[in-house]
């Protein structure tokens, strides 16, 4: 905007006095106004409202009452909050590296010159666009403790059948497994474009020097796609902290919200905890406090990632 104003005053309207907003500036504002209005009404206003609610007792049916820091105090004394925070972190720690790593492998495999390449790429992208409800039926067919394929397979091998999603220890790893399967196609596409941006000359030069393919991968591919890796990690960290639908659908929330969160709250993540408190129990003020804490955690994590990128991300 600043430079715009200078330019326009100098070039198009030389005789008139400088106005606060130039002619083009006005047009610019007008052109972005649909977005701007939308942004203020649907993003900024709710943001401010939720900040206010987080300091009040608010059940949605009556006007909010200011209670200061009480919601935050309650939050920091609530074991379920720590449990859901822990579950979320556990989910993220398993999910983010696993997805990035496997998606990279897949992208490399699908970056070759092989027959029916597009078909493979598409096949891996199908889960990305399917809804979680559909995915749940697939997962249920495999991991249903009673009728599922996984257990009948285990039994045939003479092993103990498992409780899968009903087991406190297994629920999060299993959810991560499904989340990776569903999300991998998307990340793979990002990696593919990263890989295709690596100049071929570098590989040719390395080949001239007699570098092995592992060496080429380590010294050329990895550093050159590190910005992509960075993007993938930031994106999927944010996704995990916002994970809701999957866990809601797969651990029974659709039928009974008190069941959402798996056995003994073993898969109660922050978003689910927030939803349960806000919409099922009408503790909207408390839920807003959870949302703000979640925001702060994500903000710090992203800052850390940005700070850390200097050490390993190479831009050419």
């Amino acid at each position, binding site marked *: 905007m600043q430079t715009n104003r200078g330019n326009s005053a100098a070039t198009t309207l030389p005789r008139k006095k400088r106005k606060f907003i130039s002619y083009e500036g006005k*047009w610019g504002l*007008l*052109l972005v106004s*649909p977005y701007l209005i*939308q942004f203020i009404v649907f993003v900024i206003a709710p943001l401010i409202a939720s900040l206010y609610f987080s300091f009040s*007792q608010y*059940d*949605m*049916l*009556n006007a909010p009452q200011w209670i200061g820091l009480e919601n935050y105090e309650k939050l920091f004394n609530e074991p379920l909050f720590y449990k859901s925070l822990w579950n979320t972190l556990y989910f993220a720690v398993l999910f983010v590296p696993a997805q990035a790593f496997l998606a990279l492998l897949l992208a490399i495999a699908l970056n070759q010159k092989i027959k029916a390449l597009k078909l493979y790429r598409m096949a891996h992208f199908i889960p990305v666009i399917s809804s979680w409800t559909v995915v749940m039926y697939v997962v*249920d067919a495999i991991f*249903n*403790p*009673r*009728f599922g394929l996984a257990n009948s397979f285990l039994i045939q091998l003479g092993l103990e*059948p498992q*409780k899968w*999603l*009903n087991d406190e220890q297994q629920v999060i790893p299993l959810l991560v497994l499904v989340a990776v399967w569903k999300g991998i196609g998307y990340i793979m596409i990002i990696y593919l474009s990263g890989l295709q941006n690596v100049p071929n000359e570098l590989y040719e030069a390395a080949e001239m020097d007699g570098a092995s393919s592992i060496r080429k991968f380590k010294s050329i591919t990895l550093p050159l796609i590190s910005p992509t890796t960075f993007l993938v990690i930031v994106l999927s960290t944010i996704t995990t902290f916002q994970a809701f639908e999957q866990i809601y659908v797969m651990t*029974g929330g*659709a*039928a*009974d*919200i*008190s*069941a959402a969160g798996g*056995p*003994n*709250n073993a898969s109660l993540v922050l978003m689910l905890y927030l939803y*349960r408190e806000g*919409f*099922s*129990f*009408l503790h909207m003020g408390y839920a807003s406090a959870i949302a703000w804490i979640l925001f702060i955690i994500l903000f710090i994590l992203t800052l850390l990632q940005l700070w850390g990128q200097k050490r390993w991300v190479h831009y050419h």
Partner: protein
Amino acid sequence: MKKKILTAFLSFVFITGLLLAGCSSNSTGENTTSNENDTENANEEQVTINLGYYSGGKSDEKMQELINRFMEQHPNIKVTTQSSPYGQFFQKLDTQIAADEAPDVWLSDGVLVMKYAERGAIKDLTEWINRDLNKEDYYGLESNQDTDGKYWGVPQGIQIGALYYNKDLFDKAGVEYPSEDWTWEDLKEAAAKLTIDASDKKPSEEGFNSENIKQFGLTFFSITEGWFSVLKSYGGGILDESLNNSIINSEENKQAFEWMVDGMSKGIITDPADLNSFQSPMAVFPSGSAAMRIGIYARVLAANEAGLNYDVTVLPKGPDGERFSPVITNSWVINESTSDKKAEAAWEWVKYWSTEDEVQKEWAELGEAVPVKKSVAQSDTFLNSTDKPENKQAFLESFDFAGGLDTNAVWSEWVAKFNEHARRAFLEEQPIEEALENADKDVQKILTDFYNE
């Protein structure tokens, strides 16, 4: 140039508008219809009320039909409706109330009436009910009464619990059908004979594997169709009469829990982990995987659809001969913030629903609920309809020992908390005493947080 920019801008606005409009009508998944009334100009006193209800499929059509007839009879009242599936309806309702945009009159799940009443979102209907309704005529009216005796809603349809049993499975096992004299112990004895593991063994046989059950004696879950009636008939319960205090930690509840946990550990009764392996806990009985269930009236729909050969009887007695059948009264409630004129019109609708026999009969034919009007419930339309179960009388008999589910403003919350602890006891992750003690503490905390402020 300018013209181009203007055209571009206008088309952008237009397209954005289109997109937004498209999104808003699709994403909410609601179904808003309005009914134009031809006699709009005939009367100056024309009132438009908005009516909200949760529904699906067949009942939606019937409701619309009844509304149309209501408008014919009341040319000065125009009814617009909004309906959506159960979960969405109540989620949206809360935000609508917050924005002061809730329907003027809506259908509330019986367990949620007090949530709205105690938070001041719905009207006190006591005076109107006293004036216009003959209380003796109705089932379930008292379940919308708070501890001060005020009425907050008028019954729309009643759900009441009974014991469902699968005749074919009983015949196959050579066990006599449940009788009205059964205690919970009798039930368990019979259930043991009806339980079969994966290798077709019964609990009394050697090598029976309680971990891998093919057919359960009794299926049992959550509050309404599970633990609440057992606790109550053992003399225990959850809340005291004021509904502000927990009475969970009692000797009676302990006994009831011992009965339940014992049944679950032997594989006779479905435990929470067993239930999770079915698509839905509701599916166990209709699929023939359990010989008996505790079920509310609406469960006849699924059982009939599955073509089950079954019947119902009253729920068993506790050790001291006490009985308890849970009742949920889905009710019409009127928005507190609606204008007097609209509230009057809304009341006309409620009256039409509850006083007209014809309306009650037609609704009863859907088979979703026990009619709220006693005369209709006791008529042939309900009792002698050709649909199963044969012994529909059992549902009416159950009213003699029926009671509410201790519903109060924080019902959903304390139920979730209690379930959490009960689950630990049911799965034997925690001794019964400890689970009850913890449940008592946590439920009391929820009550105190809400009521002592």
